[in-house]
């Protein structure tokens, strides 16, 4: 019984949150990795692209709510998501036209594009704050829980409860759908194959008659969709605050690099590795250990390796360790 309680406590505080957070990071990292693979630079504006997409979705959500449209037990934001994606696609294409295309034509070095993307990041960041404000915005509605801790206790008769938030459930389901679609697209469709070809060998792709501008445009569209989905899921699960999205850039990049930049599978693996390490290292293990260990060995302290203030440090330690031993990441991306 103690063992079951330990597992439930572990699921409630570590597994479920880490899976949800990992899915969000994975979706974010996929966007970063696609840009790196095809446009060949690290897009620092990705966090703020997520913020922009989420903001657009929130505005549409509010509009729907004011019209009295709801999605039953699910958050209205899911209905607004396609519109938010369109909004994000528009701004991303606009940025590409206005900014990145110029540097592409100059055949600018990747490092210049990185700095350019930082400029885009600050502009987008400012834009989002001007439009929606710098504060927290709560836009989650519908049922809060799939299972509450109390229901779970009554159902199973255990001492520990397992709560699964609706947003966590939605995160996982939506992430699976998005990743499935993306992989189908990349591996099975002609467009996806030309994207892979372009990423694999740009010179050869050009000499095979593949139109680079089209590949780039489609990449941006997909990235905008992934960024918006990732941002909205994160915002539903936690809260929307522009500055938080700016900070999310760090674990997202850590995920993409740990998995291997340019490798979609790596981005997903990286997302979960980073999420699980952040959550396990900053979790206070006292409760789980109390169930598992004999009375004499039970810990007095919280058994928390690090306070949650340091969670970003965790992703970077992992990043350093992986890069020391496998410089191209776990799934053999392009070298950084």
């Amino acid at each position, binding site marked *: 019984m103690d063992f079951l309680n330990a597992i439930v406590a572990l699921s409630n505080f570590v597994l479920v949150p880490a899976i949800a957070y990992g899915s969000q990071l994975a979706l974010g990292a996929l966007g970063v990795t696609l840009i790196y693979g095809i446009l060949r630079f690290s897009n620092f504006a990705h966090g703020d692209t997520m913020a922009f997409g989420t903001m657009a979705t929130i505005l549409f959500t509010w509009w729907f709510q004011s019209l009295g449209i709801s999605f039953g037990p699910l958050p209205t934001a899911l209905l607004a998501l396609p519109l938010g994606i369109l909004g994000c696609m528009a701004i991303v294409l606009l940025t590409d036209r206005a900014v990145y295309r110029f540097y592409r034509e100059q055949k600018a070095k990747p490092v210049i594009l990185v700095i350019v993307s930082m400029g885009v990041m600050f502009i987008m960041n400012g834009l989002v704050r001007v439009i929606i404000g710098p504060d927290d915005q709560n836009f989650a509605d519908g049922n809060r829980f799939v299972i509450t801790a109390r229901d779970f206790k009554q159902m199973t008769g255990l001492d520990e409860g397992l709560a699964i938030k609706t947003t966590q459930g939605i995160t996982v389901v939506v992430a699976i759908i998005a990743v499935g679609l993306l992989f189908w697209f990349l591996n099975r469709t002609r467009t996806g194959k030309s994207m892979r*070809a372009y990423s*694999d*060998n740009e*010179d*050869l792709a050009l*000499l*095979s*008659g*593949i*139109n680079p501008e089209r590949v780039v445009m489609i990449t941006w569209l997909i990235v905008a969709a992934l960024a918006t989905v990732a941002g909205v899921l994160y915002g539903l699960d936690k809260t929307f605050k522009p500055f938080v999205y700016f900070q999310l850039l760090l674990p997202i990049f850590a995920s993409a690099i740990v998995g291997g930049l340019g490798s979609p599978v790596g981005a997903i693996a990286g997302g979960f590795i980073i999420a699980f390490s952040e959550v396990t290292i900053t979790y206070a293990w006292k409760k789980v250990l109390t169930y598992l260990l004999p009375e004499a060995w039970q810990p007095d302290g919280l058994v928390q390796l690090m306070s949650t203030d340091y969670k970003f440090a965790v992703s970077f330690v992992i990043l350093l360790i992986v890069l020391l031993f496998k410089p191209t990441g776990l799934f053999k991306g392009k070298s950084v």
Partner: protein
Amino acid sequence: MIKVEDLHKHFGGFHAVDGASLEIAEGSITGLIGPNGAGKTTLFNVIAGVLEPTAGRVTMAGEDITGLPPHKLFHKGLLRTFQIAHEFSSMTCRENLMMVPGDQSGETLWNTWFGRRRIANEERALRAKADEVLEFLTIEHLADHRAGQVSGGQKKLLELGRTMMVDARIVFLDEVGAGVNRTLLNTIGDAIIRLNKERGYTFVVIEHDMDFIDRLCDPVICMAEGRVLAEGSLAEIKANEQVIEAYLGTGLKNRVNA
């Protein structure tokens, strides 16, 4: 077919191509020879749109194509292969060939979702064509192998195969025989001759193997130090004083003469 007029390509102070002028006749297999560093590959790169020329003009059938990007030239029927074979390493040999004709209907997002039948028909035709090409090049057994894993010579064949997936007008082959064994080199030579005869491809071939040049090419253009040194049949080129000098250096020639 192709006319290059006073072409320059400078990398800083280094003049890789330094005022080259030449003409490629339609339907010919022109050989381009010259010592290492003569600017042959740079010339190819400039003509094929990989590099922008510093000065000069390239025309194709009277049309100015100077500085057009590679994918546009591709659609005009100008193709090239690489000195070091390039391939999409994570795709199979067949998929590599099927990538070739760009601007397929499957490359738009709209058709990906709403034009599936059209794409399927197109892909079927392409697949048949790719298999035909693989058979022509005697590497049909490699169709489902990953292109990154086949041998260097086979990659060269694949490069040639890529040019056969479309109706090219002119193909630039950059050392298609380098690092390839004799038997395979003969296969490549046969393929080039057949393409030239049966499908009317014009070829420009950079090659160091004189037997290979002798078998295929007429005329032969010799380059040195970024300029065209001589043009004519291989025998004429071989007898040309300047060419011998460029290949062997003045000192050596003097010693031979003495």
